[in-house]
């Protein structure tokens, strides 16, 4: 998708915003010009980590600072994909979706709601989180994870010993609680970044 440029350099788009939080495939468009794909150097490819990311406007805008993009990408992958031990993937994604729901990142919430639904097979509960927000009734274990993620996402940070106790009572050990902390905290990075440099566009099925 291409936008039109205003005189000072941000793009303008006609594409509609999504209606609300959704598990459908939300699009995303950049406010500023991504780095040109045909000018990418080795340093840029290092920053992108995966060569396939060169086709994404989001990553080619971020690759304007390759070193922080690379470190961010590796933190992201380890927090969510390294499941040799610790919290199940579904619940890391739940923490990500909950943080995104609180901050209001409709794009991030859609991606991680899909992952949470896929890995948990509980699309019904994930949809409740999207529709009702972090006070939705999801069963005690998920409620405890969502409450911890929401408290960590609040400013000032509201995460306290009671959240840790509730997670322990729900059966999480300290490595798993640390995974909740990192998953929710990471989306306080991802949500702000995504919302700062572009905006979501409605899924195809919402088109008038």
């Amino acid at each position, binding site marked *: 998708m291409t936008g039109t440029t205003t005189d000072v350099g*941000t793009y303008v788009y006609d594409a509609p915003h999504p209606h609300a939080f959704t598990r459908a495939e939300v699009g995303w468009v950049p406010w500023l010009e991504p780095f040109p794909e045909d000018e990418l150097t080795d340093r840029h490819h290092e920053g992108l980590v995966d060569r396939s990311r060169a086709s994404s406007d989001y990553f080619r805008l971020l690759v304007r600072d390759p070193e922080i993009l690379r470190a961010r990408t590796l933190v992201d992958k380890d927090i969510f994909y390294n499941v040799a031990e610790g919290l199940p993937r579904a619940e890391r994604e739940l923490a990500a979706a909950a943080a995104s729901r609180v901050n209001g990142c409709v794009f991030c919430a859609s991606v991680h709601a899909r992952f949470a639904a896929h890995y948990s097979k509980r699309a019904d509960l994930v949809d409740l989180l999207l529709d009702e927000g972090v006070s939705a009734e999801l069963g005690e274990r998920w409620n405890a994870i969502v409450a911890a993620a929401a408290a960590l996402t609040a*400013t000032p940070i509201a995460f306290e010993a009671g959240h840790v106790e509730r997670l322990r009572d729900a059966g999480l050990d300290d490595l798993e609680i640390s995974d909740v902390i990192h998953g929710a905290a990471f989306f306080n990075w991802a949500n702000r970044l995504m919302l700062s440099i572009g905006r979501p566009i409605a899924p195809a099925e919402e088109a008038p």
Partner: protein
Amino acid sequence: MTIPTIDVIDELTGLAPGDPIDALRRRRPVTRDQLQASFDALFAPVDDRDFPLVERALVAAFATRLTADDETAEFYAFRARAADAARTETVLAEASAAATAGPFGAYAEAGLQPENADGRRYEPGIRTRDVLGERLASALAHAHLLTYRPRESDAAALDRLLEAGWSVDGIVTLSQLVSFLAFEQRVAAGLRVLATSAGPTPTHDDQEVSA
């Protein structure tokens, strides 16, 4: 033989080798190393032409003080004072005056209008813009926006940075810096809470038995 370096999360949490939470962190070596690499990429960059180090230090002191009056805010205030003591006092006074609760804001999405919430916005005053310059003042305004009402971030916010002299590359790094700090401050805060309410840490064997 690796060269011992400071680990920023150890600094912010007071963790020492052998602490239970230190042991947990070492079970996620990539996260541990790359969080540090993120800090290094932002505060010891390959080049700082588009976002000078002094400005990075000042924006970091502002953003972390907005988020919490905690060890992380103190750490970045200390570093900012070392870089530019005079402007740090202005930046910290602005942060204290502009600190509020979030996230809040109005959604662009039609179906989320019932969730719109209002709160205190921040606009650097004429005297502040005089002391800090338009570039830095506009960066503080953007940091306040991303910290408290990221859902309201839009093209107009970036136009304002461009008009104040920010390049596209600089805006990308500024966005990364404020957003990274939101992550780092929460990891540190979360681990400090976990450390003071430490429970039994199961070994790998325990986990297999309970699985």
